[in-house]
């Protein structure tokens, strides 16, 4: 540890107390003058071998089980969106703005917009690609796009059984939570 200089304005009594304290804490103390105390750690205490227990890495995770867990979480969020009431004052202009954003994205990576559904605080954009490969190429752009509303967004594209078939996913925008 680096040497530290602690200014002290009080007199000998307080200095002696500090000396007691530091001595008890296992550090050495050097007096430079009556107004400054320099602290430096003593040599590290010898650690017995049985005390150095290394943390074990987390148990291996079954990817399929983890995928199911994340999908279930996401399904729950989509269902909560479905249950939200529609607030037209927010939902209509936001959906219009999001459609324009998606049109801009589609010029580079073609995909179909099957629906943009906004409610009170969340929107779901349903999108489709000719195949899974092309869908995954758009994932990053969807995740990072500067949408008309600067809300949290979730993109989840689990691998389908057949990669060459049309691929559909729902992108969630959550304007309430961070």
């Amino acid at each position, binding site marked *: 540890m680096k040497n*530290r200089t*602690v200014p002290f304005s009080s007199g000998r009594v307080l200095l*002696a*107390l*500090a*000396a*007691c*304290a*530091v*001595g*008890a*804490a296992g*550090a050495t*103390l050097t007096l430079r003058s009556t107004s400054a105390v320099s*602290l430096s750690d003593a040599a590290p205490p010898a650690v017995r071998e049985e005390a150095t227990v290394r*943390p074990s890495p*987390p148990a291996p*995770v079954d*990817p399929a089980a*983890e*995928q199911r*867990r*994340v999908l279930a*979480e996401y399904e729950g969020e989509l269902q909560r969106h479905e249950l939200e009431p529609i607030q037209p004052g927010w939902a209509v202009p936001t959906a219009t703005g999001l459609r324009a954003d998606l049109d801009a994205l589609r010029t*580079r990576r073609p995909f179909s917009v099957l629906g943009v559904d906004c409610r009170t605080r969340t929107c779901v954009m349903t999108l489709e690609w000719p195949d899974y490969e092309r*869908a*995954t190429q758009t*994932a*990053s*752009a969807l*995740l*990072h796009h*500067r*949408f008309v509303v*600067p*809300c*949290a*967004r*979730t*993109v*989840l*594209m*689990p*691998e389908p059984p057949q990669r060459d078939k049309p691929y559909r996913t729902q992108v969630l925008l959550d304007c309430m*939570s*961070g």
Partner: protein
Amino acid sequence: MRGIRVAHAVQGTKTVLLAKKDPLNMKKTSLRALFSALLPALLLAPFASAVAGERMTSTFACFQSTEDRPEADFDGTSHGVRNRSEGINWQWIDLRCPVVTDGTFAPNTIYQVNVQGFDGHSSHDVYAMACTSWKWSTGGRCGNSLRSAATGYYNVTLTSGSGVDALYYWRTAPWDYPYVLIQLPGRGDVGFTSSVGYTLYTP
């Protein structure tokens, strides 16, 4: 120096013997023990807490993921990374910046991320988001997108109310990869826009 000798005595079994012999000594020993415990804590606490919860990373650690053409460059003014594109066809650049976590700096304890740099565009801003890439699936989650308010030096602050929780969204174990996304516009009327680095905070 006398004080030091006494303090060392307090640590050993000698203390117990002294205390048994003389009640007055016991009182003194208790006081010494009290100061021994309190004073180092008071002296050292400010140093310990200030260092443990702050992790600064230079933007040089980031990866540019713009698909059009590479435009990230060293910025000699701010000593950060700038978007060097300019003119009417300038392009945004996305910088994916690593969030290095470990047992003492767990992602679910990060309560704030600050992104610093220079905004040289009066009509476009710098955007920052806290994100996570799923480990077992394509995609991820990004929190709210925040932006620099005005031209000049900026300090975009992502907090728990503005997207930091995306660093550990749905995580029950360290399985996904957290990162900070920084988006820089091209050269503006004030100069190039850059990012110098970002700071992560834990309690």
